[in-house]
């Protein structure tokens, strides 16, 4: 049963790769449908970004793995929304 997920992550990352490159690398994960990156804070060597990721059957571990491969680290999972497709369909009926 496909599960639609939306997660909001608070991520600390270096300035490079920049926001475009960062999002592009995450988008290479096949389960991801939509990503939004918002810059929250900027320091000398680092920046805090808020990542909103949506997709079907997303694997959080793989997302966190790609983030850490780019030098970033997930500080907190701020929001999680899960919609089971069949449940959503039944509710509509």
């Amino acid at each position, binding site marked *: 049963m496909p599960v639609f997920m939306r997660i909001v992550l608070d991520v600390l990352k270096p300035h490079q790769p920049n926001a475009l490159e960062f999002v592009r690398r995450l988008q290479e994960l096949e389960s991801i449908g939509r990503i939004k990156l918002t810059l929250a804070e900027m320091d000398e*060597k680092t920046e805090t970004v808020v990542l909103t990721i949506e997709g079907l059957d997303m694997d959080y571990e793989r997302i966190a793995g790609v983030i850490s491969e780019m030098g970033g*680290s997930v500080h907190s999972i701020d929001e999680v929304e899960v919609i089971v497709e069949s449940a959503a369909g039944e509710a509509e009926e």
Partner: protein
Amino acid sequence: MKAFSRIRVLFRITHARRIIRRYFVTNGFDGVLTMLGLLMGFHISQATDLMVAINACMGAAVALGMSGLSSAYISEAAERKRELRALEQALLADLSESDYGRAARFVPVIVALVNGFAPFLLSLLIMTPLWMGHHGIQFPLPPLETSIALALLMIFLLGIFLGQISGTSWIWMGIKATMLGLLTAGLILLTGMAS
């Protein structure tokens, strides 16, 4: 394709292209000027045995290559480690398995190869007329003087390369670099005459 884009990312996050370019020009100049110095030395002493000149130049080329390789690797690896540590402290994370960690291991190797091979290959190119002369191939000028002219041409081309990087007049940078080469040759001639 994916490997190339990964390498591009590693180069971008460490600004490696800029560093490699700088090392190429700096050590390339070192190599060409050293060859020019050696060749001028042989010219002053009117050495006729090309094999002696070839062996001396080859020895210098290998030494320049090895020196470039080792010095760049040691200094660049230390620099990358320092930068990685500073970033790890800022992020409070271990970055050894991240792109930054990989770049800290990979970029010093590439920089060292460029720094070593730039003077070595340029020296080999400058020595080509000596080899060809040794094998009986004739030039309008004697082989030693042809190599000297080739060294000056290399200096001119490195100047042009610098001009293109800086976005200034490439021909003027080429001429300035060549004048530097001619000044070096003139100084060697003067010291030769004095001794």
